[in-house]
């Protein structure tokens, strides 16, 4: 089932073979690439650190859970399952955290329940917005990200509303 088990080794084989055919010094060029990669990681490290600190505080303090409780009356209006709210709140901030919450939902409600399906739709159709935003811009000298965050959050909000809607439409 896992397609990527074949994809990655195949890519490596194709790239090195194509390189040799085109008379590229694949060894030297690969080393240059690795050098650039090492530079990139040192550039994004500070942003990563700051984000991990802030996410850690939000998660460990219980603020994420509290925020989910506050939202419950509003989200009940669109029929959003309240079991899934903590996931919706955490998803934009933390990849590993939201996966842990997702597993909790699957375990508590049964993997084929409505709540689990909505949670699956959210996990499958969203990314950790703040992480992506912070890390991608940290690779550049950009300080003013302008409307990037508001637009990305509009997308996240759409995931929650559409996730419920489409799970109901396709699975009843």
């Amino acid at each position, binding site marked *: 089932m896992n397609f990527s088990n074949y994809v990655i080794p195949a890519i490596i084989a194709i790239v090195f073979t194509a390189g040799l055919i*085109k008379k590229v010094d694949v060894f030297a060029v690969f080393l240059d690439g690795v050098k650039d990669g090492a530079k990139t990681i040192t550039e994004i490290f500070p942003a990563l650190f700051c984000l991990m600190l802030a996410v850690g505080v939000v998660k460990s303090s219980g603020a994420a859970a509290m925020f989910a409780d506050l939202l419950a009356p509003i989200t009940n209006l669109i029929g959003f399952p309240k079991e899934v709210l903590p996931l919706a709140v955490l998803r934009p901030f933390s990849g590993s955290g939201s996966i842990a919450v997702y597993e909790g939902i699957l375990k508590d409600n049964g*993997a*084929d329940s409505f709540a689990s399906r909505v949670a699956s739709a959210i996990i499958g159709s969203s990314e950790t917005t703040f992480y992506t935003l912070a890390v991608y811009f940290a690779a550049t000298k950009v300080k003013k990200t302008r409307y990037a965050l508001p637009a990305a959050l*509009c997308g996240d909000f759409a995931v929650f509303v559409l996730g419920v809607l489409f799970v109901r439409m396709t699975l009843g």
Partner: protein
Amino acid sequence: MMKYVITAMLLVGIAVGFANGGAAEVSASIISSGEDTIALAITLAGIICLWSGVMSVAKEAGIIGLLSKAFAPVLSKLFKGLDVKGKAFGYITLNIISNMLGMGNASTPFGLMAMKELEKEEHSGDTATPNMILFVIMNTASLQLLPATMAALRLKHGSVTPLDVLPAVWLTSIGALTVAILAAKLFQSLKKPTDKVV
């Protein structure tokens, strides 16, 4: 923008933690954040160096050029004014392909390379260009065709039909990406790049 987000997260978290009697947990998470970041950075460094190395070979071998050409008809409509033969366009193409295939985190290294090239080609200085923002937004949404982690976890927890949500996932992804891109276009038209924006 990020300075307010980060400060708000820290202050709200600390306030809630103190009010709930969770000061010990908050303190522990602050102390371990350095260690956690280093662990994450080491994982990331491995992946980034790997793909950065492989892709510099692919670039020299002309593979990236071929892929860019194949995706150019669609992507050039989204990324206006970007040189289809440029490096940025090539890395954007790779990032999108690896996102769609769910290829073991390869999308992040390609994404970072694309951002660096966009910075050079569009002379962004300290202000994000519309193409940069569009590209980041596409990465904050999900383009993955087969969400393997989700399917594996559902299976692990006893789902009979772990892939029954796929149509809903695809429709939600497409819908959310459309909303995010439209929102970006709207915000862009509201505020000109020359305006002072936080």
